[in-house]
């Protein structure tokens, strides 16, 4: 089976869908001739033409707003917002228009837009190229929120997102575009080549939305996470030597609650980890859901490991990023509670 990194697998998903469905169009800043600043659309304009892979003006609200109109006119637009940090000029179009069009028109109008956007830190991006704003969007009914943690899921989830008649915000954790990252910045970079999830079929397949994946099974502790921190959690659990069950939720909204509840009811301990800031973060929703359905089986308060409640600082990136050290400390704390 071919080996792909996450950039290649995302490109492959777009390629497969553009080939399969002539209504799929891409649009975004630098996505066309150049192929995207992260190369996710490289070669697609040459293959499918300028009318289907469209370089856009620097106006995120315009990109999302016009994509909505295209979707209403029968296309299946996949706009790219170059960095999730740039998505806010399009926020009103996402929240007030894209998410609610089906609802407010009783299903007469809808727009199947999939917004792809790289998120997260660990790339020396400073406070405007490192954010993880998924919780802001998870709060909005009518859109689906997805964040893959590996090349295989990225392709399958992106195909499912494009095929969905609902709008999707598809977050791509850019720190793991080229390889899994265990949260230790001192170690040399690892590629996807040696990772089982770097094996990606060339053709069409899907990974269903709203289904979490149990990355590893365990009995002592459940770590609920997504994106880059899936790999950090695995490395930290191994370092501590705890028999942890690690769940990659993959779809933030709608959420696969059953998978979480089943696991925590089994292990009795739960850590929730995300890179985004803690206060009002998606971890709060996860904690509330787990607490409600697992209360009598919990042996310790639910723990949260997250980014600090500050902007993402450029110089203190590794003190900010909830990396391996913080994850290890969090797990040890959790396991010490009687």
């Amino acid at each position, binding site marked *: 089976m071919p080996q792909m990194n996450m950039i290649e697998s995302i490109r492959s998903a777009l390629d497969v869908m553009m080939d399969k469905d002539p209504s799929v169009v891409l649009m975004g800043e630098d996505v066309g001739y150049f192929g995207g600043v992260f190369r996710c659309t490289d070669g697609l304009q040459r293959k499918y033409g300028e009318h289907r892979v469209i370089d*856009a003006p620097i106006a995120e609200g315009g990109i999302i707003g*016009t994509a909505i109109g295209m979707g209403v006119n029968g296309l299946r637009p996949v706009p790219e917002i170059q960095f999730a940090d740039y998505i806010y000029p399009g926020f009103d179009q996402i929240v007030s228009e894209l998410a609610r069009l089906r609802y407010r028109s009783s299903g*007469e109008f809808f727009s199947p837009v999939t917004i792809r956007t790289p998120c997260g830190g660990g790339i020396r991006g400073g406070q405007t190229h490192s954010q993880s704003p998924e919780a802001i969007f998870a709060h909005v009914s009518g859109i689906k929120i997805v964040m893959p943690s590996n090349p295989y899921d990225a392709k399958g989830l992106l195909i499912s997102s494009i095929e969905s008649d609902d709008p999707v915000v598809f977050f791509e954790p850019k720190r793991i575009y080229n390889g899994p990252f265990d949260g230790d910045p001192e170690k040399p970079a690892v590629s996807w080549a040696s990772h089982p999830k770097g094996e990606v079929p060339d053709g069409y397949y899907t990974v269903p939305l709203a289904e979490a994946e149990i990355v590893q099974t365990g009995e002592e502790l459940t770590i609920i996470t997504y994106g880059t921190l899936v790999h950090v959690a695995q490395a930290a659990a191994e370092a501590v030597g705890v028999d942890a069950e690690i769940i990659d939720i993959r779809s933030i909204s709608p959420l696969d609650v059953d998978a979480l509840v089943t696991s925590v009811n089994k292990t009795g301990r739960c850590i929730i980890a995300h890179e985004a800031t803690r206060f009002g973060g998606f971890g709060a929703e996860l904690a509330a859901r787990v607490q409600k359905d697992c209360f009598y089986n919990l042996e310790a308060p639910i723990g949260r490991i997250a980014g600090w409640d500050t902007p993402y600082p450029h110089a203190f990136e590794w003190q900010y990023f909830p990396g391996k050290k913080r994850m290890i400390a969090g797990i040890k704390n959790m396991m010490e509670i009687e």
Partner: protein
Amino acid sequence: MANKSRLYIPRPSARPGDKPDFSYLDLVPAGSVDKPPIASRTRDIEYLSSGLVRVLDDDHQAVGPWDPNIDPGELQIALRWMLLNRVFDKRMWQIQRQGRISFYMEALGEEAISIAQGMALRQGDMCFPSYRNQGLYMYRGVKLVDMMCQCLSNTRDMCKGRQLPVMYHSAKANVFSISGNLGTQYPHAVGWAMASAIKGEDHIAASWVGDGATAEADFHQAITFAAVYHAPVILNIVNNQWAISTFQGFAGGERRPFASRGLGLGIPGIRVDGNDLLAVYATTLWAADRARRGGGPTMIELVTYRGGAHSTSDDPSKYRPKDEWDAFPLGDPIERLKQHLISGGHWSEEKHEELEEELKAEVLAAWKEAQQYGTMTEGPFLDPATMYDDVYAETPQHLESQRRRMIRVEGS
């Protein structure tokens, strides 16, 4: 010029108690603006954005190069639609005042825009209206009773009780869903038009915003995209002088006409007498032909006056002279078309009164029918359990569980 900076606050020409003053409004005689070929370069037709295209002159005659030469029979039909819009609005306003609907917005004084533009567009063209374009829905075939049911949020409400009154939609009539957030429809229209061009179809899009909403980022982003990709779209700005209490100066309309907003991007602008059905029709047809033949977007500023309050929640006597509309130099669009037809021997005061009575009866009949599907106080009522539908294409588990809980707790 002062020797230091000073914050400038725009002030309207008249406040309550003042004599209305429209001297700020640049007017030119009817028939005095040239009609260029649709293939003209923007730079050669900049005069269209600062002039004022008018066909009906002060003696109610159709004059000049923009006269679309519409058959009087067609004009009678147009008059009927405009009058229906007004009669409908008047009735719905009363109904709101009686507390039987929660909210309403009338198009008083602006009826020519929806009707003339509806006439100039083809059925396959897609409209992205503002909240004062109810005439478009009517003209394109949405039944009065369905519009009333929407305002009532009753069992036949097209929005299933989810939207404020007047936020209609009709996929069948090719009129988009009204958001309630202002100006958001502009990029949708441009995107729709881009898709039409991508697909190689000759349908065009048209959208409407008020003078106030031209200040929104969506407006500027949309017109940039329209210009960049030569989107086949008509970008209408309904300059009715007032955005609730702020006059058009607060949208930056004091120094340059709104029609010129696109010139910097190479989008031709036409400033047109919005109360002159013939001029609105002719300029819209020009822009539509241009778009259909690959000429890209045209911006049309429709100069008009908001004859009524912004909405039933507004009281314009607090911020503008009560008699300002009477003094508006472009008059009343219905009265002007009526006088035009009368002067040609194609209409009369008696026929007009008859028509108005007939339309009142039609509206009343629709209202009686609408109430059978439920009112705010009398059943049948919409089932609140439907509130979880259409959030997504398929209702996810958490919403099904909330639906069950709501039924259990609130009853159904």
